[in-house]
């Protein structure tokens, strides 16, 4: 019997795992203050901060990153397993488990960025998600009548766009599941006899 494969699921699983590996080294979104005086490297799997050449993480964020690492790993592996057995009775559970995870992570990440930048905006600091901007720090928080203006640059990096591709493929895998699971099983191909061929021609 021909093995059925959910090709979208296979691609989604592979890309999800690739996103995971790349994200360990490259952030999804990066904010740079001045000439790298301060950096924010934001990613669901590895968020860290740089200040004056030192890199540091916040333990709670580290734990959340670990949650996302395990989530991506489980999602990618389960999606790969599912894609080779899409017709099993439990396949829909495997798919349901794996296809939502990258989507949720992506939505939470983008929502988190929007919330954080909006909160910063409430304090008079308009942080650009994409592009560069001269940012004036609010003077009410600075002593001695000081004013500080910094060049701030924000940009989404390759893993973010790959994550969108992985999410799209996960959704495509879910949609394709209906076809791959309900398609009639194909009979093994047999060579048609000359008589059968002639009969077919007459009918036509």
């Amino acid at each position, binding site marked *: 019997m021909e093995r059925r494969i959910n090709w979208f699921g296979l691609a989604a699983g592979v890309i999800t795992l690739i996103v995971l590996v790349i994200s360990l080294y490259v952030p999804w979104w990066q904010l740079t203050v*001045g000439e790298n005086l301060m950096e924010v490297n934001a990613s669901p799997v590895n968020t860290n901060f740089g200040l004056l050449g030192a890199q540091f993480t916040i333990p709670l964020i580290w734990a959340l990153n670990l949650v996302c690492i395990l989530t991506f790993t489980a999602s990618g592996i389960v999606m790969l397993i599912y894609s080779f057995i899409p017709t099993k009775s439990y396949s829909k559970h495997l798919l349901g488990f794996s296809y939502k995870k990258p989507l949720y992570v992506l939505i939470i990440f983008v929502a988190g960025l929007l919330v954080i930048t909006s909160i910063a905006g409430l304090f008079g600091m308009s942080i650009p998600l994409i592009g560069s901007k001269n940012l004036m720090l609010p003077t009410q928080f600075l002593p001695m009548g*000081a004013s500080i203006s910094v060049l701030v640059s924000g940009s989404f990096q390759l893993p973010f766009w790959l994550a969108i591709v992985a999410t799209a493929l996960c959704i495509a895998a879910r949609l394709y599941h209906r076809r791959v699971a309900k398609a009639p099983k194909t009979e093994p191909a047999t060579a048609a006899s000359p008589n059968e061929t002639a009969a077919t021609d007459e009918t036509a």
Partner: protein
Amino acid sequence: MLNNTNQRTVDMNTVKIALTLLTIAITVGPLVYVVFIYRDNLIGLVLPPQFANLGQNLGQNMSNGNSSGNPLSSQLNITGSNFQMPKLVSNPQYNPDTGEFSLSVNVTNPLTNELSIDQLSVQIQSKDNNTLVGNISIPQPINIQPGESSIINVTGIMPQDMFNQISGHNTGNIDVNNIILKNLDVDVGGVKIHIDEIDPSSIQSLGGL
């Protein structure tokens, strides 16, 4: 046929339960672990370990009622950073004949990229009668290579009589208690800082003046 259906149902339930348990484990496990690690210091959950010293020092200062001054200058101690507060290399020099005033500051670049100092200028004012004594600035932009230190010469012109107003008795050096720094402009590493007025006597790290 019935056995086959039952087997499929068992398989589905087994997978469903296994996936649910896996979801709970990977979601709750790391969070419980990190809370357990920091159970005696829950503030540490949101404070990077590298800033622990800074947090402790600030906490001590607040408890001592010393919330003013310049806490960062004396307490910024970030583990893993090569950051050092700029230090005066030697006593400021003054040439009475030419009126030229200069001081040298040692600045270290803690970054992994080149650090540019495009502007550093300040006006010196006498504290007694608020007269402008002179301006000092760096003559040209300076680039410091990653991890290296550089001596920055800050120079300016001060008339002799003005210098006498702010110098300590018979010392020939500027007495920081006699001056106020006005309109400090710094452009370093893409950050532009302007400070209207600084009383240098309140800055402990510049005690060498």
